[in-house]
């Protein structure tokens, strides 16, 4: 019986391997944050063009590793690669969508958007220097808010993530003690607090612990109606975490002055710019071994730039301003096939 079983399985595998054409003709892997919108775009793209693009979230680090190892047609990362790093690996990158990080908290008696924080204060809280909610430093920014006499429980991401990278980069730029201490990375040596797995984990710990503070992606905070903080931006204005304010941060950014699109959108000028904003990036080889695959990848993102904005907005992502898209399309001219000719257009 076992023998027939094995034979049947082997036969199935052979038939499956040889007989049926591959359903997905290009594949990409990397960052978790943009995965839902890439999946959405891929779904519509397949419906319209019958070209399948399979994107899988394995993490930004994984995205870089896999594109360098050439096991996928494109990689994706929340953490832009520096120009020299790109050149060393024969890669180039371009941004696709923008997201923001939102500080969330659990303060009995205090409503969402009532507490105002600066980057400096936020860093002191995450350093464990400010230990109570009614600390005079917090109180000085929040006149009239009934801050409770509760110890602050700090919650951070336990998994390495682009969200943590943006958040710690922001703290680094705002607070010299943070810069000298934990610094900026997708995982750091957190001085205090506990780590939750993913947005879910952070949110659950925040909900279960009165007096806690954490940070999550904007889409998560919005879908789960979490209590957020108001932040002070570079212009000195108090801003709310909204899609419009993320877009304001992206609009003010000087993309054309950023070689290889290496740009963090943190603390951008502009009256309504949300200070903890960042773009997510696609990585492709500058010299494609398979011109068709390279062409397919760029065609997909061209299609997404043209047709994908509404779908992205529905999932609470912020799309790039048109001039930035034009800049990206121009950069694609340097992606060439084995024959040295551009694979796109």
């Amino acid at each position, binding site marked *: 019986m076992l023998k027939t079983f094995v034979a049947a399985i082997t036969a199935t595998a052979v038939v499956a391997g040889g007989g049926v054409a591959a359903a997905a003709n290009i594949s990409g892997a990397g960052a*978790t944050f943009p995965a839902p919108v890439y999946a959405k775009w891929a779904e519509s793209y397949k419906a319209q063009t019958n070209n399948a693009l399979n994107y899988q979230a*394995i*993490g*930004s*680090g*994984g995205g*870089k*590793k896999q594109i360098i190892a050439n096991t996928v047609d494109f990689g994706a990362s929340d953490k832009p690669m520096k120009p020299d790093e790109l050149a060393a690996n024969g890669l180039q990158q371009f941004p696709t969508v923008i997201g923001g990080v939102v500080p969330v908290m659990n303060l009995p008696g205090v409503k969402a958007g009532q507490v105002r924080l600066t980057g400096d204060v936020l860093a002191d809280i995450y350093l464990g220097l400010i230990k109570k909610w009614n600390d005079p430093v917090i109180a000085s920014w929040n006149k009239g808010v009934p801050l409770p006499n509760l110890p602050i*429980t700090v919650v951070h991401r*336990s*998994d*390495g*993530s*682009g969200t943590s990278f943006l958040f710690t980069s922001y703290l680094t730029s705002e607070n010299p003690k943070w810069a000298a201490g*934990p*610094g*900026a*990375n*997708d*995982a*750091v*040596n*957190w001085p205090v*607090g*506990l*780590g*939750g*797995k993913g947005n*879910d*984990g952070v949110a*659950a*710990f925040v909900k*279960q*612990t009165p007096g*806690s503070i954490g940070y999550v992606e904007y889409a998560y905070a919005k879908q789960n109606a979490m209590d957020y903080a108001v932040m002070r931006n570079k212009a000195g204005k108090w801003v709310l975490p909204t899609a419009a304010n993320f877009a304001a941060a992206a609009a003010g950014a000087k993309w054309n002055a950023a070689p290889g699109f290496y740009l963090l959108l943190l603390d951008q000028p502009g009256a309504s710019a949300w200070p903890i904003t960042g773009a997510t990036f696609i990585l492709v080889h500058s010299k494609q071994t398979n011109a068709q695959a390279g062409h397919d990848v760029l065609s997909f993102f061209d299609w997404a730039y043209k047709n994908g904005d509404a779908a992205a907005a529905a999932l609470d992502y912020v799309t790039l301003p048109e001039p930035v898209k034009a800049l990206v399309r121009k950069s694609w001219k340097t992606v060439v096939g084995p024959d040295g000719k551009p694979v796109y257009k």
Partner: protein
Amino acid sequence: MSITVNAAPRRTTPRGFAFDPIFEILCFTAATTLLVALGGVIVALAIGGWPALSKFGIGFVTGSTWDPNPDHEIYGAAGPIVGTLITSAAALLMALPVAGGVAFFLVELCPTPLRRPIGTAVELLAGIPSIVYGMWGLFVFAPFFAAHVETPLMAAAPTGSVWETLFSGIPNGSGILAASIILAVMILPFMAATLRELLNTVPAQVRESAYGLGATTAEVVMSVTLPYVRRGAIGAVMLGLGRALGETMAVTFIIGNSHGFPKGLFDSGSTIASTIANEFNEASGLQSSALIALGLVLFLITFVVLALARLMLRNQAKV
């Protein structure tokens, strides 16, 4: 246990006997395949982990600073190592008596019509994906544990006593003890199902003669059936311990994930496997190497634990 046949009787076809050495070779090849697989894993880990191990030396296992920031990368894994040992030991301590109890109940006490449904139900526990345990732990178990166990215990602990230290931490349902309990629930079905299977193999005569001598159920189990399956029982425990040591997803959700030493039962900590699961996806360069080296350390721990178990078993056999 080897069986030798000197002369083949005529009745049987020579072909049947000719296959004997081939069959033995087949079995041997399968065993060697396992060996090669593990060897391959260890070699791959050693190569991958070498940069971190050579850079930090003994400090990799004794240091307690885990700082993945590329500007000051320091990897000392003492926190996760201690966390792994504590949670696995605690989970085993909690799960083993329960697994034993369940197995004895099913084999010796349970009314026959209930035997199969309960046995299947316990096996079903093993089939629930570990991410479900993690999410159940986080959303259902943690709030309950915080409100009904942690908070009362912390309030009841006399100030300045050893209890206060033991019960320190943030009472929100996460931490070392909570993770150990979830682990215990996860490894329970493995051990219970294997133990039950072992107890079922005890020949009826053996048990019946013990009962016939007037032994009580407890005595039959403790003095007759349990010693009979002792060797296999150790295997069952190893199955459970193995899963506890290597479990990632469920632990990650609920242990609190801080790389220092846990100060109390409710404090957050981390395990080797949870650290790998947390950081591997985003890691590159030295951090990635440090995580692979961490995997190697886990293998070493398993080696030591298993070797100790063997040693204990051997000593017991001599007595």
